[in-house]
């Protein structure tokens, strides 16, 4: 039994440790941070590629973001994706998870013919983890979160492994379904640089706007969002005492014992 389309949603995120916060303007400065494909989405893409390797099908990457994400989508193609779609539109600026999941769902519907949709469990910047179940709800299909492996057991049915507290559960799911993939559950393959060169020179990325997806301006962006950010606050790590203790092991141990006894009181 062969799979049809395996769709992977992909987000480009700045590396969290490189974000700078301006306490005066209370804004986030992403400009100096290195951008990368959201790590969990890489795991999702790897999962999709493995499914295709085993069961056939086409892996299509879908992203909602600004034009500068294009090289990252081409990187996904270099990793092995068959096609890539970028939904880029100024009207989408300011979208929270509600219009984001709607937009991605519409794009997925437009691509059509899908058996499995994969998404990273959460993104390293916003980290809500809400978009994948949201997309499934818009599409009216079942979903499973925190998935670490997927096997197709017969036409139209898959068996997935889901992480739960203290272990895992095995679930059987009817296709089509959406799975959010656990960060680190596999090792994403390194891109094929010959394919990357081809992707950069010849591959044409599909770029869709909200009009292409039949979305109204009230459904997306700030207007379409159900939450809003009032302000941003920096959460500084707590001030530490930084008391240094030196000396021979016996003395150091004595001092530490004293401190610990005091704390345990």
């Amino acid at each position: 039994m062969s799979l049809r389309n395996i769709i992977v949603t992909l987000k480009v995120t700045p590396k969290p440790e490189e974000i700078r916060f301006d306490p005066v303007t209370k804004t986030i400065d992403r400009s100096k941070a290195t951008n990368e494909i959201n790590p969990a989405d890489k795991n999702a893409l790897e999962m999709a590629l493995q499914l295709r390797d085993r069961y056939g099908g086409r892996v299509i990457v879908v992203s909602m973001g600004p034009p500068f994400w294009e090289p990252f989508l081409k990187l996904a193609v270099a990793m092995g994706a068959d096609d890539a779609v970028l939904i880029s539109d100024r009207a989408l600026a300011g979208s929270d998870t509600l219009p984001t999941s709607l937009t991605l769902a519409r794009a997925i519907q437009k691509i059509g013919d899908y058996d499995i949709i994969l998404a990273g469990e959460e993104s390293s910047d916003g980290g809500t983890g809400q978009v994948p179940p949201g997309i499934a709800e818009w599409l009216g299909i079942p979903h499973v979160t925190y998935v670490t492996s997927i096997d197709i057991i017969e036409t139209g049915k898959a068996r997935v492994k889901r992480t739960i507290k203290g272990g895992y559960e095995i679930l059987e799911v009817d296709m089509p379904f959406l799975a959010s993939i656990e960060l680190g559950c596999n090792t994403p393959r390194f891109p094929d640089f010959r394919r990357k060169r081809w992707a950069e020179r010849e591959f044409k990325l599909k770029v869709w706007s909200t009009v292409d997806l039949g979305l109204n301006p009230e459904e997306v962006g700030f207007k379409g969002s159900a939450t809003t950010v009032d302000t941003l606050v920096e959460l500084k790590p707590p001030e530490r005492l930084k008391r240094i203790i030196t000396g021979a092991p016996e003395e150091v141990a004595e001092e530490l014992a004293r401190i610990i006894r005091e704390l345990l009181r």
Partner: protein
Amino acid sequence: MKDIWVFVEQDSGVFEESSLEVLTKAREIADARGYRVTGVLLGRDVRRIAGSLGWYGAHRVIAVEHPILESYLSEPYTNIIGGLIEERDPDYFLASATRNGRDLAGRLAVRFRTGLQAHVINLDIAEDGSLIGHVPGFGGNIVAVVRNVKGRPQMATVALGVFRPKKLWGEAEVEVVEAKIDPLEPKVRRVEVVRKGYVDLSKSKRVVVGGMGTGGDLTLVRELARIIKADVGVSRPLSDIGVAPKDIYIGSTGVSLNADLAVIVGVSGAPHFVSGIRNVKTVISINKDPEAPIVEYSDYFAVGDLFEILPRLIEKLRGEAG
């Protein structure tokens, strides 16, 4: 009078502790405004335990029973709770940000075209009735103050371990509701559950953490932990090389500690690690390298060889416990 609904997660008759945290917080918010807190409890045989949720803050509890609900499964849970929300139109809906809580909330928020705030570390209701939450992002260094602006119920998932459950009130009134299982043939079916022993380090009050400086030998770390009645954690590299399981490594992709005391041994203090100790009250580090980055994140930093210091420290503390 406004209604705050709190999804109380349970598994085989045992409440998820973080759900009780949310219940208490909801009650505190409710008491300040004269609102009502309703626990929503789904499970196999839960009517008997539903009332006890009142102690943690629920005024009343809606209990739904069915064998299929024994532990969380997306379809029946979403459909049953969705049906109840449709019928009764609560103002707010909260859940703990466990995997299942976020799974459920993510789907429900779209079903009702409403706002959902993710793993808030603080929560309140404004004058105009809108839900205000503090949402951490970007690895936890930046917090966004977020407000729900449209849709009902207003939703949020709450970060684990931020609030404390308090047993202050009394038995809650329980309403048992007939489970409407639809579809009868669910598209997701559970086949097997495998559970191993589980230590929730994020709840530990005292932790001793071993890093690569131990060379993978956690004997002294475990002994110290035993003496001071602490749990044992590791830095990620030790888990990567198979010395310790994945559930106990500390860091941005692992456990975030909320302990009163953490003794950190042989860990250099890379950024990924230190984000996991930011909420620890007192941090004591032991490291051979006086310039290890972890100095900046420690209250007490002992310079020296852990293999020399720990045995002596253990001897001195033996019998002290506390």
